């Protein structure tokens, strides 16, 4: 009896544990995961402390301290200070909040819309599919960052708008993936079996198709966050990003441009922060893909 229950438990979780083992044994993916976890903890802690009015960062990231402008990295200011004497370390840490939230929000937005549109198109095919995909073609025919820039140039800066701009431009990505996955899944005999069993379309979509297309979409979403973080930074750099005085990495870089020779540290750390964040999501996404890759499993 105990033997049996143990066996059952194992088999139930085996899919998950397989994936976990695969990630766990992939050093790069694990590193990515750990960094992401750290970043998330940073962002959440900062946000909570902010809301409660507790100062957890060494300095207020937005408060100018004119007497201490352009202090090179030292014991008091690990990453130095900027033109207004604000502590770069505090600002970089504070910036995690923005980058992650814009990334996650934008990806969620495009993921939800894109998946729904793509899945509908892929499942029903025909005219609906044609209309949806032509619409996606329109968005796709403008390079995504350019479109985001155009949006921001017109709408003006702001957190919500950045999310919208970055989100909209990546909808087609998800729609395409969802669509091709749905079509691939649809070609499987188990869908035919479901139809023969008398399942309704809705049931087929939710019970048979969606659970089977999550892996590639989740992988894409992980990588999508990295792209969204890069895009946020690019918008910030062009002066189109998040509303100041929020510490946003791209904006910090833009402002340190004037001092690249006189105070290079002002541009080193925000840039590193972006790179590390993006790298972490890329590492994890790649690992996740390997773990979920159907080619490395089955048969």
């Amino acid at each position: 009896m105990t033997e049996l229950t143990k066996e059952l438990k194992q088999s139930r979780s085996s899919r998950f544990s397989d994936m976990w083992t695969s990630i766990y044994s992939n050093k790069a993916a694990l590193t990515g995961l750990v960094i992401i976890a750290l970043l998330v903890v940073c962002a959440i802690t900062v946000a909570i402390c902010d809301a409660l009015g507790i100062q957890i960062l060494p300095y207020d990231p937005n408060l100018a301290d004119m007497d201490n402008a352009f202090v090179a990295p030292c014991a008091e200011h690990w990453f130095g200070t900027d033109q207004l004497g604000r502590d770069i370390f505090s600002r970089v840490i504070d910036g995690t909040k923005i980058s992650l939230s814009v990334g996650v929000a934008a990806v969620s937005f495009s993921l939800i819309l894109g998946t729904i549109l793509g899945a509908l198109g892929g499942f029903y095919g025909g005219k609906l599919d044609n209309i949806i995909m032509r619409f996606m073609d329109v968005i796709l025919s403008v390079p995504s960052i350019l479109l985001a820039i155009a949006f921001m140039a017109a709408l003006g800066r702001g957190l919500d708008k950045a999310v919208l701009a970055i989100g909209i431009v990546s909808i087609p990505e998800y729609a395409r993936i969802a669509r091709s996955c749905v079509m691939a899944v649809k070609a499987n005999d188990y869908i035919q079996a479901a139809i023969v069993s008398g399942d309704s379309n809705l049931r087929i979509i939710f019970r048979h198709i969606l659970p089977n297309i999550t892996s590639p979409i989740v992988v894409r979403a992980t990588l999508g966050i990295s792209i969204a973080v890069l895009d946020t930074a690019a918008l910030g750099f062009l002066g189109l990003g998040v509303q100041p005085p929020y510490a946003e990495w791209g904006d910090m870089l833009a402002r340190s441009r004037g001092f690249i020779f006189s105070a290079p540290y002002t541009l080193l750390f925000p840039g590193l922060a972006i790179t590390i964040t993006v790298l972490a999501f890329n590492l994890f996404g790649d690992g996740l893909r390997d773990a979920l890759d159907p080619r490395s499993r089955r048969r």
Partner: protein
Amino acid sequence: MLVYFIKRLLMLIPVLFCVSILVFLIMRVFSPDPALIVLGQHATTEKINMWRESMGLNDPIVIQYLDYMKAVFHGDFGYSYFTNTPVTDELLARLPATIELSVLAIILAAIIGIFLGVLSAVKKNSIIDNLTMTSALIGVSMPVFWLGMLLIILFSGYLHWFPSGGRIDTLMRPMDGTGFYLYDTLIIGDFEAFFNALEHAILPAVTLAGYSMAIITRMTRSSMLDILHQDYIRTARAKGLSAVSVIGKHAFRNALLPIVTVIGLQFGSLLSGSILTETVFAWPGIGSYSVECILRSDFPVIQAVVLIIAVIFVVMNLLVDLLYAALDPRVKYSEESA
């Protein structure tokens, strides 16, 4: 082939039509009124109205759109709000710089990317592979503009190897010509100027190429690995072909198909990447110009830039598809020939 080509070309029309509406909506409907800044510090409300009238901004939006499109078909993208010169002139004057840089970058990215990708696929899991893949991963993770600034600090700030901006030393500037300096200087045989222009182009080209190079490397590697597992590679080896011919002929030619697609798509992202790169390097192309225009809300210019890049992008994609078709005999243009 011709039928397929025409068909694809005709399919572009509705897409581009919708793009134009989209861009027009973004720029005209959702954007702030630029009149206040266009007219400088001596603007008055009365003058602003006059200006809006003269720009046709008081017409119904549909009329505005139709007028705009009518003009666009005649190659007229309207007038810059600021300089009051035709947008077409402004862009044409800057286009050579951007094309020169993009072409240089895509060549760089393609050659190096493919080379490294093939190398690491063939030497899978070796030190070279790990090193290449790590660099490629960092390459796709680094913001272009940051990379650019780091390169400037290193190569022009400390090492003084390359200039930090501009296209050529002014005095070497070719006096008349196409605007493609590398070409112009070569044509007149002014090698000093040619190398000067090249020197200026290297850092921005490397920066711009960085991301695409990384993507192409990764893509090449995975596509090569895919192909190397195919049955026909086993067939080729069973024939007694050497590793070089198996990889170079049988594997690479097949792997090239997805790579060509990626390179084509990268050209589009390169064009938009040039917005950031040109800004960092003060490269006088449409990229840096559009940033300038974005910052002062010169919407006719932004609108034109987005439209033009969309057209280039879409046409590039078409070319890539055609090239793909030319490279892959499996793609059929139409059933009739069969």
